[in-house]
């Protein structure tokens, strides 16, 4: 039973962030420059919650910002980079200097680990990772990969172990107050994340009436029964984009990317864009309504005007 089944699950951003304990293991939605719950991440940075472990498949921006602020201890990852820009420098620097530890997987391997946890089984079989250093180097808290003899034939097969984050934080386009959430476009690995996590926090661009969800009930990627808290965070993925709603702000993302070349510049960026702003409203005020409006996409081509042909 979901803890808030007795009514609306809607809470404010600070309440949701305060439910994250120091030392927690987290997993975030997002892929490329889209769909990361960055309003949540900034509030989590302000809260000061540290000693985190991340199960990071495609959440480059949350992982980078949390690592840049020194809040991360260990990352189980499959790929972290900024598409079209380059390396996630704060994470790379932290690894190169031994500030954080990592355990590497293939995308399928780490996703299946989450799925195994979500399905309530100790492992799932996999046809990749075998023979590579992803098999040989096991540096997580628990073993990630083993080989089994199939009971159904003379065959050896790899299996990856179940891995459950304490909390999955998922940003969606629309959700009702029970957390039934719609993601427009590709869902990245949200399906595995929400099933694996012990708790699920949904941040959403819009909270909509149940009827709006019912009308498009085949598009509900996040079943409300898995959700513990729902937070209304308009432009919650900014400066990243939300497919179908607004485009990523390449200029602002580039500003972080440039700052990330050095530790002091990174710290200055975080000071300016996170710590000096009291909350998400202040962040959006700072961006300004004109810039937010310019990011809004054409409903057919899903690109903002001025972003070229589709």
């Amino acid at each position, binding site marked *: 039973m979901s803890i808030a089944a007795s009514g609306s699950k809607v809470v404010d951003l600070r309440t949701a962030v305060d439910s994250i304990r120091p030392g927690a293991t987290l997993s975030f939605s997002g892929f490329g420059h889209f769909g990361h719950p960055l309003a949540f991440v900034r509030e989590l940075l302000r809260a000061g919650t540290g000693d985190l472990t991340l199960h990071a498949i495609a959440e480059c921006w949350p992982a980078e910002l949390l690592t840049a602020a020194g809040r991360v201890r260990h990352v189980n990852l499959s790929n972290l980079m900024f598409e079209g820009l380059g390396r996630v420098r704060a994470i790379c620097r932290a690894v*190169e200097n031994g500030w954080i530890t990592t355990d590497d997987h293939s995308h399928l391997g780490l996703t299946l680990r989450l799925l195994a946890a979500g399905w309530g089984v100790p492992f799932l079989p996999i046809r990749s990772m075998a023979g590579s250093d992803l098999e040989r180097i096991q540096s997580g808290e628990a073993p990630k990969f083993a080989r089994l003899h199939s009971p159904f034939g003379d065959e050896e097969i790899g299996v990856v172990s179940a891995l459950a984050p304490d909390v999955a934080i998922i940003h969606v386009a629309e959700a009702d107050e029970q957390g039934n959430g719609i993601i427009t*476009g590709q869902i990245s690995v949200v399906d595995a994340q929400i099933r694996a996590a012990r708790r699920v926090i949904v941040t959403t661009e819009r909270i909509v009436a149940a009827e709006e969800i019912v009308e498009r009930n085949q598009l509900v990627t996040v079943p409300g029964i898995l959700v513990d808290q729902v937070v209304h965070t308009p432009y919650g993925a900014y400066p990243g984009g939300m497919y179908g709603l607004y485009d990523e702000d390449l200029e602002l993302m580039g500003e972080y990317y440039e700052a990330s070349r050095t530790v002091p510049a990174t710290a200055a960026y975080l000071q300016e864009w996170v710590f000096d702003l009291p909350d998400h409203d202040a962040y959006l005020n700072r961006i300004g309504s004109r810039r937010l409006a310019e990011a809004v*996409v054409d409903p057919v081509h899903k690109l903002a005007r001025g972003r070229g042909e589709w």
Partner: protein
Amino acid sequence: MRFTHDEMMTVATSRFIRDGWNTFIGTGLPMVAAYLAKATHATHATLMFESGILAPEPRTVARAVGDPRLQSTARRVSGMLDALLLLQGGHVDFGVLGGAQVDRYGNINSTAVGGEGYHRPATRLGGSGGANDIASTAGEFLIVVRHSRRTFVERVDHLTSPGFLDGPGAREAAGLRGRGPTGVVTDLGVFDFDPATKQMGVVSLHPGTTWDEVAAATGFELARPATLPTTKEPTARELDLLRTRIDPDGIYVKADRA
């Protein structure tokens, strides 16, 4: 007709893509090559992206594997688990991979270079992503990298994605289902793997490239074949498609505009 290294690499890559193949690609030069293949000899190749995007037909070149242009023009949009399980299920004929290091067996490192190794490298990179999955389970795959001694190394610092591992029989022993790497395209030439030894060999050198240049840029011993064919030049049609239709702004494939 003049052409750039990028254009030669793109055209050489596109020629590996066969008609009707389900092709798993990322963005960048390989995506441009795939669209070139579809516009020429592989009309019915289907493009798949690890983000779960199937058969997109964007009007302009996409910047990322989750680019809105790809999503809004795709026949199907799902997620990564779905895409990678279709791959593992045997539905992908071909993939294209890059990397920071490649060895003679086509093993690829895209994780960590130098320093004290994996736990404290000199340079930490992005990691496997779907690359290990493609290398392990796609029907076959092509390696596309720039040619240098830093890239073509005797032994990869981290074996992220399996080529032929340590030689004949090793993929089979590890239970890998894909046939492995079938070619390498660089800015200097086209390479393949010997069916018996599984070691990299020369197929052709790009126009204007010499054997000495290739040997100097390769950190392991590459056998010099008796004859050294020249890679077939990009045709006027291929160059025209690249320059005017597929990547007119040279986002991924630089054309010589001098």
